[in-house]
């Protein structure tokens, strides 16, 4: 399966040139770009590992590209995403987030059901990969 988190996961994986164009868009909007990675792709896993701090004073997309590449080199089989943070009053949140790396094999998720009263099911979604300990999942 293909995890479709992030803004562009229904398109073919972005080339570095395409990634760079998106980062330039973020910089034009004065958003702070950051790189994060994880091997726990659960949809509610909010806090991925930060690969360094958000690049608040970055002016050239090349700086972000070198961070992305360093992260890929360190964690070649992890999910890696680029976030763009907007500190404008009333937003103060991520305005764009997209994947720039994914494991070669994505085994997907197990859905567990537990029967409860009145035909209610309790659902639990678990990435198959998280059966392994962190660092050995992909």
């Amino acid at each position, binding site marked *: 399966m293909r995890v479709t988190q992030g803004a562009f996961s229904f398109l073919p994986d972005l080339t570095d040139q395409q990634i760079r164009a*998106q980062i330039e868009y973020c910089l034009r909007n004065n958003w702070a770009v950051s790189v994060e990675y994880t091997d726990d792709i659960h949809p509610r896993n909010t806090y991925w590992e930060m690969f360094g701090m958000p690049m608040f004073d970055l002016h050239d997309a090349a700086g972000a590209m070198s961070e992305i590449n360093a992260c890929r080199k360190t964690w070649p089989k992890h999910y890696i995403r680029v976030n763009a943070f907007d500190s404008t009053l009333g937003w103060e949140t991520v305005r*764009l987030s997209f994947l720039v790396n994914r494991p070669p094999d994505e085994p*997907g998720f197990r859905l567990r059901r537990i029967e409860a009263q009145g035909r209610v099911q309790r659902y639990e979604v678990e990435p198959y990969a998280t059966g392994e300990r962190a660092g050995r999942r992909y």
Partner: protein
Amino acid sequence: MGSPGHTQVLDTSKRYAAGVLKYAQMGYWQPDYVPTESDVLALFRITPQEGVDPEEAAAAVAGESSTATWTVVWTDRLTACENYRAKAYKVEPVPNNPSQYFAWIAYELDLFEEGSIANLTASIIGNVFSFKPLKAARLEDMRLPLAYVKTFRGPPTGIVVERERLDKFGRPLLGATTKPKLGLSGKNYGRVVFEALKGGLDFVKDDENINSQAFMHWRDRFLYCMEAVSRASAGTGEVKGHYLNITAGTMEEMYKRAEFARELGSVIVMVDLVVGWTAIQSISNWCRDNDMILHMHRAGHGTYTRQKSHGVSFRVIAKWLRLAGVDHLHTGTAVGKLEGDPLTVQGYYNVCRDRVSEVDLPRGLFYRQDWGGLRKVMPVASGGIHAGQMHQLIDLFGDDVVLQFGGGTIGHPMGIQAGATANRVALEATVLARNEGRDIRHEGPEILMTAARHCKPLQAALDTWKDVSFNYASTDTSDFVPTPSVA
């Protein structure tokens, strides 16, 4: 305007003599009045009867929507009546429409109970629309003073927190309404929900009139829909949702359905506008207490928002709903099957999303409105739209909108999943291209055709619906610009 008929009678023995005075003479026409920062302001479009002059008609609107009755009453003198009288302070002809006038009216803040849309509307639209000296009236816009705004709690979730909860940023959200609207059993209904979510939509939606009918009781629908949501989430790794419509005959029943939706793990519930203002504010409080997104379907609004001469503009309804506290609001598509001039519709979007809305006459915004930190409402564009219009929709409305393709998903020739995938690919390709600096308004069709090269479902969608547009003249347009139509 200085004629005796328009001048307030200041001599109290004459002013309070038993009998009938003109509204202007009673003090409801105050051309020198300067509204204060804390006044509630309302702009009415009025069509006076033959022979009724516009200043008197405006004064009558001010009177009938505040303290007046048809005759003089001495009991006014037991109150600080000057304070409680609404003041009509300006009348001007509507451009290119000789029978209609804009009447500008100011209301003292003390006239309104804090945090109650029911009370606000009982004054502003309570009696006045039936008033005989007017052929017709329409409430065009309102300015809610910051002091009043802060008595409301507003959206329980808002755009920012909704996106953080869903972990979806930088693109419009995608939805669809299950079709056919009525008649599917719970099991078949859930099938449509699963297919659409698995194929790439973020949300599926109950329609406004899906409640608990003989063909599908509400519990059955909730159970099958949450099975579909959970399966689709496991199949994609994304947070998914289905707007469970909890609209019911009583508040007790609505709370019961809301609690069951919560028990099943739904992220969102929905109500229809027809449940009424008090019910909306109550369920909004419940949503705030339970971390639930509240989707509002504006069922019924067209009966009073569409015609320019009569009713309440939807921009006013949107303002009231932002105060009352909804998270999603259907605000029109401009390009789809339902009424909506593009600029006018953009005005509604601004009301939902701005921190401060500025005066913008072409978009129908007559006042500056400070929202005082109230959360932003996510607008929803739904009704007769398809993947081939993606560039127009994103160009008109930007990223913070839910685009809902019902027929455009479920009617896809290759099936519902393919329909959903077509929409998602079209969406992502268009956003990617826009961010790269391309002019999507003009290059949109080419961008979509290129994306379709790696996505057969998108190609099929473009082929199926390429000639579909709903190109009719809008009825509700600004009087301050010529109205272009969108092909």
